[in-house]
């Protein structure tokens, strides 16, 4: 069933030459902010874990939980099966905690150091409410433009500590809890204790276990029964301190009949040392609840030789715990030197639904190995996977998916569509779909295509007056349209421009 594709013949020599000359200074977010940072001692030991826990004044149970994960991690081996190659991560050279010196918490946005606000401004991230409320330019011809511009609440993570939370008051009125996970540990310990690690167990995998031991901060969301979260919730991640591993921990719980849409955006400054990112995201949807989780990821992919980029090893999993619950992952991946990521859904509740919509772009020497796992446990569970991979330069882009239908998942259904687009002749696209089916009446459909951006198309578009770079962007946007439609409007606009930036110089 697995088909492994590698296409080596070229469109034309100029294209290849241009792709080779690809320069990495396309990356606009490559700068760093000069603020004092408080580090954990370098390296990983029980003392490091205790340092982190005491910094955050954590309760005893959480320290124990971390130490247990640490013990476990010592016995584990780093996975090497993904189709990616990278220099070994030096786990003892990493600082496992970095907090801005001025203090980890701010009562109001006015207390946030000016440099931090500046950093966000350079990235074009709207932190202040007024800016957050700004609308988006959109094509009026699309029906989507008629939609009211949704509001977004931002929980900004600067390195490891959440520095500002907006809209909290209004969310509070609705009963929605939206705060950093370290605050939630103090303010809602019963919820955190109940759900933390309930989707991604401590021992799940090498990186998740490491995260469990040393996670620094992240976001906590709880939407009470029957509540539709009144706005999109959003966290922008940005790594700043040198040699800082990032270990975010996100936990989102939608109680019975609740709905929440969450946006995650990332961008990191240039670094010489490869930076490790090993986040864990856990989603829990109870009966009739729905969670939409959208990601636009733009970490630095490294220079033209692939040196210095972010290593992104993240564990994202959603648990459709209740009946008729639904979880959708939508992601746009353009950054990182190495990406290893499989947002997955465990379809436990009967009639629950899991969706995965993905756009992964690789250029230069990037390597991406991404995909999803849909685990069907309940009856009549349905899943849908649409993956669009775009490879340019000398990059490698792999889709790896697992659809697993367990014995009790009667009448389960899956639809999978994997499309790859190749730009130039030195890149690779690979599709590796696995299916495990223990149920006779399951319905599984799989479609896969690999196409090359054609000279015919490019010329046709240019003949109409559209310049080459814009022509590529237009064709690529067309290729990913089915997925872009699943992103919230303002995110879709951002994603489109990201696609364009990340493919600059890929044809010539």
């Amino acid at each position, binding site marked *: 069933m697995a088909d492994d594709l590698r296409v080596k013949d070229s469109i*034309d*020599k*100029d294209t290849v030459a241009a792709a080779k000359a690809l320069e990495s200074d396309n990356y606009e977010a490559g700068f760093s902010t000069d603020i004092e940072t408080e580090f954990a001692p370098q390296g990983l030991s029980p003392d490091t874990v205790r340092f982190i826990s005491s910094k955050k004044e954590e309760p005893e149970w959480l320290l124990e939980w971390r130490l247990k994960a640490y013990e476990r991690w010592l016995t584990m081996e780093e996975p090497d099966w993904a189709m990616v190659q990278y220099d070994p991560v030096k786990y003892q050279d990493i600082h496992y905690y970095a907090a801005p010196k001025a203090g980890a918490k701010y009562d109001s946005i006015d207390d946030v150091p000016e440099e931090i606000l500046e950093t966000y401004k350079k990235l074009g991230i709207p932190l202040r409410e007024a800016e957050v409320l700004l609308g988006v330019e959109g*094509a*009026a*011809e*699309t029906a989507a433009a008629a939609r009211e511009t949704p509001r977004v609440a931002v929980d900004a993570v600067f390195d490891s500590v959440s520095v500002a939370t907006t809209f909290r008051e209004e969310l509070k009125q609705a009963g929605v809890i939206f705060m950093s996970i370290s605050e939630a540990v103090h303010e809602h310990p019963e919820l955190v204790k109940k759900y933390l690690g309930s989707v991604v167990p401590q021992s799940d995998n090498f990186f998740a276990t490491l995260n469990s031991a040393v996670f620094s901060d992240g976001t906590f969301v709880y939407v009470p029964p029957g509540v539709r979260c009144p706005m999109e919730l959003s966290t922008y991640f940005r790594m700043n301190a040198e040699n800082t591993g990032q270990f975010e921990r996100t936990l989102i719980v939608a109680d019975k009949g609740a709905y929440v849409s969450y946006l995650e955006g990332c961008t990191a400054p240039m670094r010489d040392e490869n930076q490790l990112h090993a986040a864990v995201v856990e989603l829990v949807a109870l009966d009739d609840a729905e969670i939409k989780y959208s990601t636009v990821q733009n970490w630095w992919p490294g220079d033209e030789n692939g040196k210095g980029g972010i290593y992104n090893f993240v564990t994202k999993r959603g648990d459709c715990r209740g009946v008729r619950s639904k979880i959708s992952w939508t992601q746009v991946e353009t950054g990182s030197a190495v990406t290893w990521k499989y947002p997955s859904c465990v379809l436990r509740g009967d009639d629950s639904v899991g969706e995965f919509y993905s756009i992964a772009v690789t250029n230069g020497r990037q390597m991406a190995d991404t995909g999803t796992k849909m685990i069907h446990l309940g009856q009549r569970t349905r899943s849908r996977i649409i993956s669009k991979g775009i490879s340019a330069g000398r990059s490698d882009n792999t889709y790896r998916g697992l659809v697993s239908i367990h014995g009790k998942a009667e009448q389960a259904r899956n639809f999978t569509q994997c499309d790859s687009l190749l730009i130039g002749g030195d890149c690779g696209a690979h599709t590796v779909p696995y299916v495990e089916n223990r149920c006779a009446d399951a319905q599984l459909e799989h479609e896969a295509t690999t196409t090359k951006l*054609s*000279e*015919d*198309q490019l*010329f*046709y*578009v*240019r*003949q*109409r*007056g*559209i*310049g*080459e770079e*814009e*022509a590529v962007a*237009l*064709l690529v*946007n*067309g*290729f*990913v*349209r*089915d997925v872009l439609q699943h992103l919230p409007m303002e995110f879709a606009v951002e994603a489109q421009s990201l696609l364009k930036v990340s493919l600059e110089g890929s044809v010539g």
Partner: protein
Amino acid sequence: MPVMLELKDLIASVGDDEPKTILNGLSLNVPFGEVHAIMGPNGAGKSTLSYVLTGRHGYDVLSGKALLDGDDLLEMDPEARAAAGLFLSFQYPVEIPGVPVMTFVRTAMNAQRAVRGEPEISAPDFIKQARLVANELKLTPDMLMRPLNVGFSGGEKKRLEIFQMRMLEPRFAILDETDSGLDIDALRTVAEGVNVLRDEKRGMLVITHYQRLLDYIKPDKVHVLSAGRIITSGGPELALRLEKEGYDGIVGEAA
């Protein structure tokens, strides 16, 4: 009338690896306000001429010149030629998956306007104009929301080419066998769409096999292209003669 399109002794080859000379010293002048037809047997180099003029990769001009209103086309990128007002209605329109007709045309219009230093067209103006033109060409609004050329019939694709032409309002249009695959009603619709753009500031090259189209788009001149050269030129009566006698007679006579 002064010359709008001036082609002089064009020699051009096709193909990267083993270049093959297709145009063998082609000369042709189209004055402002005129429509010229180019007829000729299969493989004569008609489409090659259209690609050479629009700057397609792989079509190399070895010598000769091509000027549009005095500007050297051969110096420009394809998109610059388009912004200068050159439009090609493709013999085989290309599918653009995922890009709705409306999005495509609006992007093209604004790209051309940006090069010319003009402001973008507003969404309401664009939609108004698109509706009007679509209606004339018997294209439904629903069709304009679909990805360009994907799943359209041959005739619909040709009408979409003319739709784009009408929206972009080029100064000089090349129609490459726009009539092939059209039934008589569609042919009339397309011809009417083309005729709207005829005025003293514009010019047109109409490439066709059949005299039929020329009943609707009346050419000022007819040229016969064979083996990469214009072998004879005349008025509309030349097209009628070709229809009756076939290319063989005329090609043989000129040789």
